């Protein structure tokens, strides 16, 4: 009464106590999706946008080539240059090939800490005490790499193809190149599975992000350098992961075999690398570390 007289209003006083939750739990939660969504958001907060912008520069250059090759006419000097640019299947393959370094930088920056940091902060028991199994965890983490890796490979290559369809004057371009988008997706998937899988595996074996970045570049480019040196006497491109990807991609884009051995060799080696990555991840990702 006294409170009312002073103009105060009645307010409920809540006791600080544990309150039960009356909501409903999803019986089969898609935990891999939760892991992927949260990971994509976290990586975005690391200001990766700047890097993605840099990764768009080659796309803009290639987009200029696509436009230039179809739309410049009447100026003999420029027309000669435009005519020299051939927009065909190898054009898209080369674009993706040259994006591989940027792709690797993006994958390294967003993927290096994905498992390494979870192990460093002993987060795995927290994950695996929830309804999360090995495949949920690994596929969730892998999808983060797919999202950002796809943004610098598959997405711009498909955009270039659509742009070519819009600006080309070539009759029957779509009829003769309808399979190229599938090849783009296949090559992108190959890069994502092999290099993304390798990145996740490296991340599972080292404790720090920096070590993971160094390790992935060493794993990719040291064999590449060795292949370059040794190829002076004989073709040993199969020891290089990037050369194997390029060889399989050449088959996908109907660009001939750039190596002196069968593309199946490259494909089998890549498949073996992926299988080894899965095995290593399976061995390494344990809910608890047992100190012997």
């Amino acid at each position, binding site marked *: 009464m006294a409170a009312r007289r002073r103009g105060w209003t009645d307010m409920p006083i809540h006791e*600080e*106590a*544990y*309150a*039960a*939750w009356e*909501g409903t*739990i*999803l*019986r*089969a*939660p898609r*935990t891999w999706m*939760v*892991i992927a969504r*949260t990971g994509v958001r*976290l990586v975005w*907060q690391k200001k990766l946008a700047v890097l993605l912008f840099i990764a768009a520069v080659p796309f803009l250059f290639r987009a200029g080539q696509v436009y230039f090759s179809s739309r410049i006419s009447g100026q003999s000097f420029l027309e000669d240059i435009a005519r020299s640019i051939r927009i065909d299947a190898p054009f898209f393959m080369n674009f993706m090939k040259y994006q591989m370094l940027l792709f690797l930088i993006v994958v390294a920056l967003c993927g290096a*800490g994905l498992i390494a*940091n*979870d192990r*460093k*902060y*002993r*987060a795995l*028991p*927290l*994950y*695996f*005490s*929830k*309804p*999360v*199994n090995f495949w949920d965890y690994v596929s969730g983490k892998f999808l983060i790499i797919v999202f950002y890796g796809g943004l610098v490979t598959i997405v711009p290559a498909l955009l270039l193809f659509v742009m070519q369809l819009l600006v080309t004057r070539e009759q029957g371009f779509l009829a003769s190149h309808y399979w190229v988008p599938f090849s783009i997706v296949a090559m992108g998937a190959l890069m994502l599975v092999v290099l993304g899988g390798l990145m996740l595996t490296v991340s599972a074996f080292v404790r720090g992000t920096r070590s993971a970045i160094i390790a992935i570049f060493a794993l990719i480019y040291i064999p590449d350098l060795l292949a370059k040196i040794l190829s002076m006497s004989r073709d040993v491109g199969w020891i290089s992961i990037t050369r194997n990807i390029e060889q399989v991609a050449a088959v996908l884009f109907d660009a001939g075999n750039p190596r002196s051995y069968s593309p199946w060799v490259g494909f089998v080696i890549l498949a073996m690398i992926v299988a080894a990555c899965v095995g290593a991840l399976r061995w390494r990702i344990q*809910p*608890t570390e*047992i100190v*012997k």
Partner: protein
Amino acid sequence: MSVTLNDFTVNYGAVTAVDRISAAFPPGATGLLGPNGAGKTSLIRGLLGLVPTAHGSATILGRDIHSERKLIRQLIGYMPEDDSLIPGLTGIGMVRYAGELSGMSGADAMQRAHEVLFLVGLEEARYRTVETYSAGMRQRIKLAQAIVHDPKLLFLDEPTSGMDPKGRLEMLELIRMIAGRNRMSIILATHILIDVERTCDHVVIINRGRLIKEGSVGGIRGKYAGTFSVRVEGPRAAFEEALRSRGCKITPDGAHRIDVTLPDGAATELFFEVARDAGVQLRRLLPSVQSLEDAFVKLVDEDEYGGSPPGMDGHADS
């Protein structure tokens, strides 16, 4: 029963961490007691499928731990002993994430995350990244992520480890508050007996991976109700012999003391009568077990040495 174990065994290579334990954890708050290295953490990890079990079976909330693992993990909450965090996330982000992983919708998980962070006292720090949290705050955030989805059973592994005395009391108060709601059962693994005495009604004691006792806190203390710690000055052998002849059971407790269990119906006056007859002075006469800690020490000693450790004199005379 919250948890039942049947010949439950966990091995780490050649080392047996949990050795054929058969026990039942009733609903409510149960303390899982044991000295360091007794196998408490391994038992919990085995139950949750975090380490493989070597032998035996177990159920959690009536469900088999092998065939219904995913469902069980939705129904339980787990606060690990290790300093576990999900890096890069803020406090609110980590608890929300834990809720979503348990099957809550994003909106529900966010709302509930605010509630539980308020409950555990992290409302001021909820927008800080968890890596910047102090040891006490890390314990609290681990508790918050474990209770965000309102589990039916909560596993707490050394929840007060690394906390200052004030934080420890607050954590115990929180656990007591949660246990008091009667909707959620709690299994509290610890070697700090006072924590169990303050929060639990039931105790399961393990040592070297084996079950040594289970029962209510009062029952375990009561096991030694008729046992007294006695010290005498004078001819001790005659005193002991006289006690034996009156039906008492005598166990040496260090070099100078004996534990005497009175026969049924006998009262403490017996000591004074026997002391007078044997010509000794009674210098100490105390109930052998006054707290759960005393009972625990006795049980572990009995398990390891079949009685008191020889030559040890663990209690201060009063």
